Structures are given as structure tokens and as C-alpha cells.
């Protein structure tokens, strides 16, 4: 094509009904536009490895300022304070709420089993809340959190990142428009070779830091890794599974732990559709992805990128002529690019552009925007509670080595 406007016109006017509807959604490739004003004063509670990653992302969002950091471990707290210049440090949520009343919003990244206590205190104090996922390790805690969130007039968001990710939003618009037709299989994995241990300067600190390996409180790989991906399927399908089965084993890290390092989980939906999920800490091949396979196409999502693989007999839309493609062994995938029309207008559709920000950034920026503008977040606590409940019950299936029913009424009440 000789000029960008011509190409854009071509995309708008010649794409078929499906393609036209796919490119129509208003998808923001750029960061969310947040209303100007005084920066939102934020506190971050729990500054282990993930909490520090959150601090790094928050520092690049000018519409917020981290003014308080909280952790029960002083070495973690001091390390976080070096990253959050100007913030005050606190050893407990009670101390933070008492001594830093000007903090407007809290990001909770404590261990999962401590979410309930911290989040309820934050909501009772009238703070906006961003809660890490899974939300809790028991159904009782989920019910308490849901009830408190319903009573709150503040923004209460949860950290299932797919819902704020522009590539996932674009893929969902394809999916909801029926591009895959009859669904056949759903598959996802999170594979990474790692011990999943946290080192501590002393054996005592190390025990406390490795709560994920404590079977009394940990939801294991299914909860801590799988839930993030289960939520993508729940969001795309607008439904939840009705039963769960799982099996797990220690394949590599035979260091005295009980929590399996390799897990396979099967979530069955009411119509018989099955989501197969696997997680392992023994091998990194293909990393983390979600895969939807239908009669006309498959969609593969991998957080910063997404692809569509079309069947030979699938209808071809005009825009596909210009789409970027990637080869995966025998299959050619069309790269799903948010803001495709805009990029086409700039002549960049074939460049294979990935996300300009991290998935975590989009999720946090959405929270800051919604807390500032008093809007509904991309992932509500209610949505996250339902997915967390599925993870808790799937983990129960792993521990009992039996099929566990997932009661729709239980999820509905959350």
C-alpha cells in the first residue's frame, strides 16, 4: 500500500462483519488516561519479592505516590524503603492506619492467608483497596472479604491481570464475536524451573518467608499460579466450572517439601467443556500461556502477546492480508495487536508490536484510575472471589485425590 490513510480506509471499509466488529472496540494500547489532580496517596502492605515488583511499577505511574510501606520483616521493609523514596515505613497494618491517615489507597501483597486480616482492616478504615490474588486460602475468608467489599463505598480491585491487559481485551473481543465457533478444548500451563523457595538471612526468616511451601496455608501451584489463568477463561466464557479434579507429584525438588512441584488440574464446565491446566517447577518449556481451540480457529495468549491460528476452512477477513504472522513449527499465527487500526494507519501493523507496558502495570494503572475517578475496576473483588473459590476447591481436589463439585450457588453468593 502506498499510503497509510489508504490502508486504514481499506481496513475499515472492506473488512467483513466479523473483522469490522473485532477492530471496532475502543482498545487503549497506551496507558490508561487518568484524570489530572493531586496524586493518589498509596500504601503498599507486604513488600517481599512481588511487593517490590509492585513498587517498581507504581513508581512509573505519575498519578499516584507511594507514601507508606508496611512489612513485618524489617530487612524487607528497609529494602522496600530504598525503592520508595519519601515513603514512611510501618511494621503492621494497624500502625500504618493509625499513623498515616492521609493514605487514600492500599495495595495488599502479603501472603495469601494473611489477606483477610489486612484487607478487612483497610476497608474498615475507608481505604481504596487493591488485593493480590488468589484472594484467600479458605472459602470462609472469601465470604468475609466479599461481604466487606459489598459494604464498602471505595474502589475494591483484585489482581487478576488479564482483565486489564489490552491484548487480552482484544482477544476477548474476537472470542466473544464467535471467531472460534464451536469450542473444543481449553488448555493452559505455567511452567518455570525454579525451587519456588525464598532465601532468608536466617533459618527462622526463611521458614516464615516460605509460606507457599507450607501445606497448612498454601494453595500450592493451583492457587498461586493457576488461579491467575483460570480467571482468563472465566472472563472469556462468562461462566465457571462445575467440578475439579487434580493430581500432583514431586518430580524435581525432593528437599523435604510436601507441596507438589508438578500438578495437572482438570476443570469441567456444565456443557462438558474441559480446561486442562498444568503447572511445574521442574521445566520452563513454553512458559505460561492460555489456549482456546475452536472449530474455526485457536487463540493463544501469553501476557504480552497473543496469536490467532485459523483453520483452513475458516473465512478470511480483509485485514488479515496486512496482519503480522509468526511461525510456530507447522502453524502460522496471526499476531493479535491492540489498537490494530491505529497501528495500521501508522503503517506499523506488520511490525509485530507487543505490549508497551507490563501486565502488572496495566492492572495497577487501572486501579489508580478507578480509585481516582470512583469508577468500577477491571477486576472486581466479586469476580476475583469466584475464581479464587474455584482455585481453593481445585486444590482441595488435589489434596483429597478426588473429584470436587463446585456449587454455582456458592460462587454466586460471593
Amino acid at each position: 500500500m502506498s499510503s497509510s490513510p489508504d490502508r486504514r480506509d481499506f481496513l475499515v471499509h472492506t473488512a467483513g462483519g466479523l473483522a469490522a466488529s473485532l477492530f471496532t472496540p475502543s482498545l487503549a494500547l497506551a496507558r490508561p488516561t487518568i484524570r489530572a489532580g493531586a496524586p493518589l496517596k498509596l500504601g503498599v502492605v507486604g513488600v517481599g519479592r512481588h511487593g517490590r515488583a509492585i513498587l517498581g511499577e507504581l513508581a512509573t505511574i505519575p498519578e499516584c505516590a507511594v507514601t507508606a510501606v508496611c512489612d513485618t520483616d524489617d530487612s524487607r521493609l528497609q529494602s522496600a524503603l530504598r525503592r520508595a523514596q519519601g515513603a514512611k515505613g510501618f511494621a503492621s497494618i494497624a500502625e500504618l492506619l493509625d499513623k498515616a491517615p492521609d493514605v487514600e489507597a492500599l495495595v495488599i501483597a502479603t501472603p495469601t492467608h494473611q489477606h483477610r486480616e489486612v484487607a478487612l482492616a483497610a476497608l474498615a478504615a475507608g481505604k481504596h483497596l487493591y488485593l493480590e490474588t488468589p484472594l484467600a486460602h479458605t472459602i470462609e475468608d472469601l465470604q468475609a472479604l466479599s461481604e466487606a467489599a459489598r459494604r464498602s463505598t471505595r474502589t475494591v480491585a483484585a489482581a487478576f491481570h488479564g482483565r486489564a491487559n489490552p491484548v487480552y481485551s482484544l482477544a476477548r473481543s474476537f472470542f466473544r464475536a464467535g471467531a472460534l465457533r464451536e469450542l473444543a478444548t481449553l488448555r493452559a500451563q505455567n511452567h518455570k524451573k525454579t525451587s519456588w523457595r525464598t532465601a532468608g538471612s536466617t533459618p527462622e526468616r526463611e521458614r516464615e518467608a516460605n509460606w507457599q511451601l507450607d501445606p497448612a496455608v498454601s494453595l500450592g501451584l493451583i492457587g498461586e499460579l493457576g488461579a491467575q489463568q483460570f480467571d482468563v477463561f472465566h472472563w472469556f466464557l462468562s461462566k465457571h466450572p462445575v467440578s475439579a479434579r487434580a493430581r500432583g507429584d514431586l518430580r524435581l525438588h525432593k528437599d523435604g517439601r510436601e507441596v507438589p512441584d508438578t500438578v495437572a488440574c482438570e476443570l469441567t464446565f456444565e456443557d462438558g467443556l474441559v480446561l486442562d491446566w498444568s503447572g511445574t517447577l521442574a521445566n520452563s518449556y513454553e512458559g505460561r500461556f492460555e489456549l482456546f481451540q475452536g472449530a474455526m480457529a485457536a487463540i493463544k495468549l501469553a501476557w504480552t502477546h497473543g496469536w490467532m491460528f485459523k483453520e483452513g476452512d475458516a473465512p478470511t477477513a480483509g485485514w488479515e492480508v496486512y496482519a503480522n504472522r509468526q511461525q510456530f513449527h507447522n502453524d502460522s499465527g496471526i499476531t493479535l495487536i491492540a489498537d490494530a487500526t491505529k497501528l495500521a494507519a501508522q503503517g506499523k501493523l506488520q511490525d509485530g508490536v507487543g505490549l508497551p507496558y507490563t501486565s502488572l502495570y496495566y492492572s495497577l494503572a487501572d486501579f489508580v484510575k478507578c480509585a481516582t475517578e470512583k469508577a468500577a475496576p477491571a477486576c472486581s473483588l466479586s469476580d476475583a472471589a469466584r475464581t479464587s473459590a474455584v482455585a481453593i476447591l481445585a486444590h482441595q481436589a488435589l489434596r483429597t485425590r478426588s473429584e470436587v463439585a463446585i456449587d454455582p450457588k456458592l460462587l454466586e453468593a460471593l
Partner: protein
Amino acid sequence: MHERLATAAMGTRFELVLEARDAAHARAAGEAALEEIERCDARWSVFRSDSLLSRVNREALAHDVALDSVTFELLEACLRFQQATQGAFDIAVGARMREFRSGALSPATERCGAFELDAARRSVRFTRAGTSLDLGAIAKGEALERAAEALRDAGVERALLHGGTSSVLALGAPSGASGWRVQLADFDADRAEVALCDRALSVSATHGRTLRVGERELGHVLDPHSGAALAPQARCAVLGPSARENEAWSTAALVLLARGLDPRELAPAHLEVRAMHAPTDPTRAHSAPTVPPRAHDALREPLCPTPR
């Protein structure tokens, strides 16, 4: 208990060898260190569209871009190094480096780019059109320092870390030894081995990656003042307490040499510009080690850095 771990980041292989109280502790501490390196890669890679540096390069000409504290401090240090080296070290050479990597280096004309920092807003803004930042080797040095900090936080006191073998950082010394033995290839025999203890070493050379333009062989180090690629003739090693600072000075030293200056006259006293070597036989420089980094048993044989 010794543990060895490695990861691929910043286009090279990072490795570490560490001593810890038991195998589980060693593994967990080493993984925390590698995660820091991977996090640095995610922040500063010019090859990832979602990295913070890519965001800066896309947007900083149009408006201020907010930075995390680690990146801001690194850019502040880069400006200090730029001043101290009389502009021989400058990260605003990203556009020229892109040209070099693509094999299409346009004629050098003027200084590559410019940026300024706003400490109050902790942000960066480009002050010249066409500016693009490329942290290059200094990112490797910074990543090693972050990784060493993660090891110290985890209670590890003895470790050797390297990135692509050209940047090496020692935490303490191996049990029963005065330092981690590191061998400098192609340097004079009496300076061919050093023992590192709580020190870092950076080795730079212009011949690591080269580009042929007509009859001329050009190295991958550019003079930021002119944008010109240097001829592949020089190498140098810098020892000092900071891997980050060593990287800046070992790169700058090559540029200063090409300008006919002695980098030892500019370098701060706490740095040891241990060896510089300009081979008279150009074929030797071209055939200098460019083999992929290999695993080393730093406890039994010295690490042999490959100049960048």
C-alpha cells in the same frame, strides 16, 4: 555447599557460583539473584517493547516519563560518568547502536543525543530529536550489583558472578582462599591473573562485535561526540569496587584511547585501569576470543573473561 546457577539475559549468559549453608538455601538465594538480573533485563532491554527503557525511547521526546527509583539512580550515574569521562561514556547513543546492529551505519555527523533528569518528579525527558538511550554494558554491571545485593540479603557472603564473562563481581572470597581467581586473556603475562575479593572487574574491547564498511573494520564501541565507530584495536580492564562504574570506565577508556588520551589520567583514584593493550597485528585483534561464554568452575580454575 557450592551451587552454580545461570540465566540468559541482556543477550548473554549470566552465571554465579556461591557458597551457602545448605543446598536449599543456596538454590533459593541464587534464584533470587538471577531474578534480579532478569528484572533488570525486563526494565532496560531495548529488544522488549514492554521494557521501561523502550517506553522512555518512545515517549520521552514528547513528555516527561516517570522512572522507578532504580532506573532513575542509574541514569543519574550515567550523567555523572558522562561528565567525568568528558563525554567518552554516553548512553544517548541508542539510535547509532541500532544502526550498528542492523549493519547499516550512516556517516557520523554529530553528537548522538541528549536527555535531562528531573529529580523532583523522578522523570526523564529527551532534549534533542532522535535521542535514544542504550544502557549497553552498564546495565550488565548494574544487574550484577543488584544480584549481589540479593545474595547479601539472603545471607550469602561468598559468591562470584559474571555477565558474559566481560563483567565480573566477587562477593567475599572462596573459603580458604584470598580471592576468586580470574584470568585476563591477551593481557601481559605478569598481569594475566587477578584475585577478586569484594571487587569487580570489567573487560572491554572494540573487537567483540565488528562491522565491515568497505575496507574498514569497525568495532561496536562508538565515540558519542561524533557517533563514529572505533577501529577494533584496543582493549582494557578496569578493577574497582563497583561493577557499574567499572563498565562505564572500561567503555570510556576505549573512546579516550581513540582520541589519543590516557584514561588513567581521568579515572578516579579508587579505580585500577589494570591493563590496556593495543595489538600491533590487526589479525590478532580480529581473531580475539569471541566464543560464547562457557561454564566455569571458578573454584578449580580461574574464570577467563571474554572482552565485550
